[in-house]
């Protein structure tokens, strides 16, 4: 039997009649069974070898290419008193990234929630239906890790909560925070995004990416 038919059989690309014919041939011929086994095994080995690559954090340079192309020029609408900034960030650092949390050396760690979800999820730069940029920035700038801030959308009546999860300092000395953003709309089931934002020298919080564990790529935008 042709190896092309065997491989299509292994990959489920044959119709019922063709599959049946292969089944019958396999029953008679041990050498065919061996070939099918090798084809299955090769595919499994490949998935095992490369599977984790898609779950690694994205290099900042790559995200940068796409942000620049998309003309993503986010402006902070809130200005903060310079003296208060250091104090609040230091407070957040002290309380969240203390002895219990592992020391992180890179800003490009995947949030824990993503690691626990082997299927992964689509990446975005915002949580669909999430809080306005100003609310997100204010929360990241002021709130301690584990404290959530609620905001209600006056139009859709959906309730959005933003909660900083962890704070750490990247190798280039910038502060980064992981946060969770949950959107509860009156009619749709609640959804959650896990974001990573880093603070620029000018005091803006740039969202690096948001992971949407349960969502489909089709509904990345509201």
């Amino acid at each position: 039997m042709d190896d092309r038919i065997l491989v299509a059989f292994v990959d489920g690309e044959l119709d019922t009649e063709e599959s049946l014919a292969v089944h019958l041939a396999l029953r008679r011929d041990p050498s065919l069974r061996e070939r099918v086994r090798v084809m299955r095994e090769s595919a499994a080995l490949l998935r095992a070898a490369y599977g984790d690559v898609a779950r690694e954090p994205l290099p900042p340079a790559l995200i940068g290419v796409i942000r620049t192309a998309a003309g993503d020029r986010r402006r902070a609408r809130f200005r903060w008193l310079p003296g208060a900034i250091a104090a609040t960030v230091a407070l957040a650092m002290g309380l969240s990234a203390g002895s219990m949390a592992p020391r992180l050396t890179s800003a490009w760690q995947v949030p824990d929630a993503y690691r626990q979800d082997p299927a992964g999820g689509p990446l975005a730069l915002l949580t669909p239906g999430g809080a306005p940029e100003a609310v997100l920035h204010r929360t990241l700038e002021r709130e301690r890790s584990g404290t959530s801030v609620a905001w209600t959308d006056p139009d859709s009546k959906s309730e959005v909560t933003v909660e900083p999860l962890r704070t750490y300092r990247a190798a280039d000395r910038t502060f980064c925070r992981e946060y969770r953003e949950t959107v509860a709309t009156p009619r749709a089931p609640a959804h959650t995004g896990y974001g990573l934002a880093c603070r620029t020298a000018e005091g803006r919080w740039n969202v690096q990416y948001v992971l949407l564990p349960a969502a489909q790529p089709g509904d990345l935008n509201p």
Partner: protein
Amino acid sequence: MDPRTRNELLAVLPRLRRFARGLVGNQHEADDLVQTACERAIRHFDGWDPGTRLDSWMFRVLQTAWIDRRRAQQVRNEYVETVSAIAHPVVGGEAQALASLTLGMVDSAMQLLPEAQRAVLLLVCVEQLSYAEAAEVLGVPVGTIMSRLARGRLALRRLIDGVAPDEGIEVLRPLEARG
């Protein structure tokens, strides 16, 4: 580029990195290739038909960028380099060492396969594209996809068995026995 497309493109990136990783064999070069592909895609974005899948189109852009790169480089024989890379000591638990060694060997064997077979194996076995989708990405008939897949998968197994240095085979055996 509108925000929706930008988000879609971001969502494709992890799989694009994985495809590139399998094609070139090391992450540094793979990321460089992904970046080139993204820049090209953005420059020629009008080449994408919004009615079609963005991931398929990006796989195609990346594969083309890769072929161009291979042509530009004077490709050296990387055989010796890849084989010696297999023998690196692995730290960690037994299971981890086993897994890591196996994966290193799969990766090394992949780099020894003809490039056309490598691309098909990655698209179908790892990215789980259908034959029709893979044929579209690579611009070849479905029959060609099938023969490359069959040959590639049988060859991969032979390479893993044959290429492995002695210590590599030692480690591989228990894995086969368990399965």
